[in-house]
């Protein structure tokens, strides 16, 4: 996607001002909520439209609600689920947190970091350690990457997950060192085999005993060691500092954030991201870079618009949140795993590949099935969820509801001919099935979220 004005990075990252060509409208409000939250209800979209883009972003960055109180109560539920080797219960509680949180951007960023560090319970085999790990990510998700990274290096789960529970002097762990360099910080092509050796040596002495991280001086291989061209007697802490001093680390993080918040298609040139990388490298404050991205001209440009594929979690949580509804999350967790996104269990150390890999013939059919289940079982505050109530004023004619649902889910992105064909069939098919109008509306909603357009964020 090339768009002339974006050739200038300074303009691209400057705050967005609506114009005749790029108005602040329902589509842009929907776009903002897909990226900075997990979708929005109609009422939230209307509020955002009235507030204007920058004030809408203020509210997403600093929600008015008591986020700390919400998370404290969510932590309590999670703690009760964090026992044993399986993370299935934990997974259900995280999904519930995503559905109910007053600070969806924080959960979305926590999910981002979970994909970045990509720790899997397939190896950790402890719900408690995985809960602690994700809690660490949540604590710093919009804060300091430096603190998060130091926390990660002090997290026993990380060592267990990477098969590095015994870093003996005689057996420095090269795969662990490679993951630190390639996935956590510098990125591929930014280090040598010698750097891998040096990092592995620097971490000798660290062991996990009974889920605790311990340091055994006698197992540490001290002495001169060359890392990134510098000689020294490196230990783990010094390695962490050296890695954060490398511009490549900030560049890689910004590139990953760009993929998460702006576009998976068409990776941009380094020069385009450089202003943000320089900004991040100053003090590794993540929130500030996230804010710059969300407020930017680039964010509200065709470069970004529906240029990501919704992950299964984004698809499902987005649907439920946009309806202002809630659903049982135990089954949902399993269904999302089937669609390729098993929370607490990313496939490899590279995290979820995402993008076009989310979609294939089978996952597309699976998403439709999941949407049916979610729509049929979702609940509102006072009993079964009602499509008619979800879309706004209660005095509008029933016949208008399908159109209102289409506006809520797709904001005019579906060609009108397609939309008519979908909705006309849906109402009659639903009515045939049960002679009851709610089924027709559920059918409408299911067809809308099964469209190719809806799979894109």
């Amino acid at each position, binding site marked *: 996607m090339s768009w002339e004005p974006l050739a200038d990075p300074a303009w691209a990252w400057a705050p967005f001002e609506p114009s005749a060509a790029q108005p602040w409208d329902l589509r842009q409000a929907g776009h903002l909520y897909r990226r900075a939250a997990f979708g929005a209800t109609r009422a939230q979209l209307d509020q955002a439209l009235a507030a204007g883009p920058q004030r809408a972003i203020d509210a997403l960055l600093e929600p008015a609600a008591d986020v700390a109180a919400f998370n404290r109560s969510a932590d309590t539920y999670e703690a009760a689920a964090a026992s044993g080797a399986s993370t299935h219960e934990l997974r259900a509680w995280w999904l519930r947190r995503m559905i109910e949180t007053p600070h969806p951007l924080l959960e979305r960023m926590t999910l981002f970091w979970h994909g970045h560090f990509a720790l899997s319970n397939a190896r950790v085999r402890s719900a408690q350690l995985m809960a602690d790990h994700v809690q660490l990510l949540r604590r710093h998700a919009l804060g300091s990457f430096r603190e998060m990274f130091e926390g990660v290096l002090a997290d026993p789960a990380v060592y267990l997950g*990477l098969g590095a529970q015994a870093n003996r002097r005689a057996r420095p762990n090269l*795969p662990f060192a490679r993951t630190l360099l390639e996935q956590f910080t510098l990125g591929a092509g930014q280090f040598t085999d010698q750097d891998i050796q040096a990092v592995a040596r620097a971490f000798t002495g660290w062991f996990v005993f009974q889920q605790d991280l311990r340091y055994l001086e006698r197992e540490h291989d001290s002495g001169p060691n060359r890392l990134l061209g510098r000689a020294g007697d490196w230990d783990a802490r010094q390695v962490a500092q050296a890695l954060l001093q490398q511009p490549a680390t900030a560049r890689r993080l910004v590139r990953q954030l760009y993929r998460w918040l702006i576009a998976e*298609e068409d990776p941009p040139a380094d020069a385009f991201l450089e202003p943000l990388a320089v900004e991040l490298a100053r003090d590794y404050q993540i929130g500030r870079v996230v804010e710059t991205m969300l407020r930017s001209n680039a964010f509200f440009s065709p470069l970004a618009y*529906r*240029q*990501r*594929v919704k992950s299964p979690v984004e698809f499902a949580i987005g649907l439920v949140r946009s309806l202002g509804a809630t659903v049982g999350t135990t089954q949902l967790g*399993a*269904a999302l795993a*089937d*669609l*390729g996104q098993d929370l607490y269990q990313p*496939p*490899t*150390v*590279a995290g979820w*590949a995402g993008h*076009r*890999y989310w*979609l*294939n*013939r*089978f*996952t*597309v*059919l*699976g998403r*439709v*099935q*999941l949407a*049916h*289940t979610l729509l049929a079982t979702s609940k509102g505050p006072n009993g079964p969820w009602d499509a008619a109530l979800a879309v706004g004023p209660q005095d509008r004619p029933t016949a208008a509801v399908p159109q209102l649902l289409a506006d809520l889910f797709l904001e*005019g*992105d*579906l*060609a*009108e*001919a*397609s*939309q*008519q*064909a*979908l909705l*006309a*069939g*849906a109402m*009659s*098919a639903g009515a045939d*099935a049960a002679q009851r109008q709610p089924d027709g509306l559920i*059918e409408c909603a*299911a*067809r*809308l*979220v*099964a*469209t*190719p*357009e809806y*799979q*894109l964020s």
Partner: protein
Amino acid sequence: MPIRRRDFLKISLGGSTLLALSSPLGESLSQSAEPPAPQRHDRDTVLVLLQLSGGNDGLNTVVPFEDDLYHRSRPTLRLAAQRLHKLDAQLGFHPDAPAFGRLYHEGQLSVLQGVGYPDSDRNHDGAMRDWHTARPGLALCPTGWVGGAIDHVYDAADRDLPAVFVGSTPTPFNLQTEKAVVPAIRSLSDWGLAQSTADARPLPSRKRPARSAAAALPSQTHPLLALAQHITRRAWASAARLEAVVAEGRRANPVEYPPFGLAGTLQTVAQLIRANLGIRIFAAEFGGGGIGGFDTHANQAANHGALLRQLSESIVAFVADLRRDRLLDRVLLVTFSEFGRTVAENGRRGTDHGAAAPLFLVGGKLKGGLIGSHPSLSDLDGGGLKFQTDFRRVYATLLDHWLGFDSLAILGERFEPVDFLESI
């Protein structure tokens, strides 16, 4: 103008609930819906990979009845020669696997003897991990060998996903990919068809209503949307094909499958093959989930016999089903298990974890017969049989010569092929 619902079907894909689905394609898309024909640059051969979980006792599956050591090593478990289904003057199939005998003599079953690997693991998890990754001893290998094949050939825009797992147990690690999402298909058997497919007519063409095109997302300038449309189109075409196959199966005289879980799984595989969706590898599992599986440490005889009966009869029905539709020449089924068992029985009328064991190959394009000789019962590997053929040679043969994939790229090493296919 009333638009008919294109189709109305139930599918169980990655969930336990069966639900009515309807096409999400708007008019423009459903008009151009294309059937998923086999893709030109692919072969159309199919591999069915059947995992026997727990460590199958190869020695009581293919029995060297002329070997005294066999009878001496197994005072209670030995199988008498007259009850066996003979392959030749030395070897016979287990009494409960007459179906294997028939297939063998018809040339549709080959026995690959003494398959294993060096320094084989004796623990279930470690050994199965080795068979799944094809990287023995590399405990942290992040992907399975089939998963590696999937990531190697799959391309969302151009090639359909080449492999699926069929069954209700957790997906085995051999399908673990780095990138692609591999589905677990539980069943297609309970499709409620509210309307026959004959009712699903192409939508009548009509003029597009005049409207500002600016509002809709234009797929011409949005490659990601074009891709999502392409995949959605293929998804619905695939669903329609499956629906047609299931409907057709009800009308025609279906081949009777025995009432075993494995038979149901293989019937689903046959339906998926018949629907011609471009799936090249089907993985399935038998015997997993604890008690009653192939891990026969105690009172083995009845349990093992029941498993072999289910295995052989399910496979025979599968072969008959494919043969009826002249599909057998495209299909090759291969069994594997994490290890064989000890030659000597233990004190509990069972056997313990061993090493090498035979693999069974079933299909229409096999050389047939026995491949390799029976491993010695006296020259053992920790109480189990020594391997003669490294299992990675089998994988490489399947990849290069059966599927037409590049084994070097997938397995990371070149392995000498094993000569079991009709025309290598």
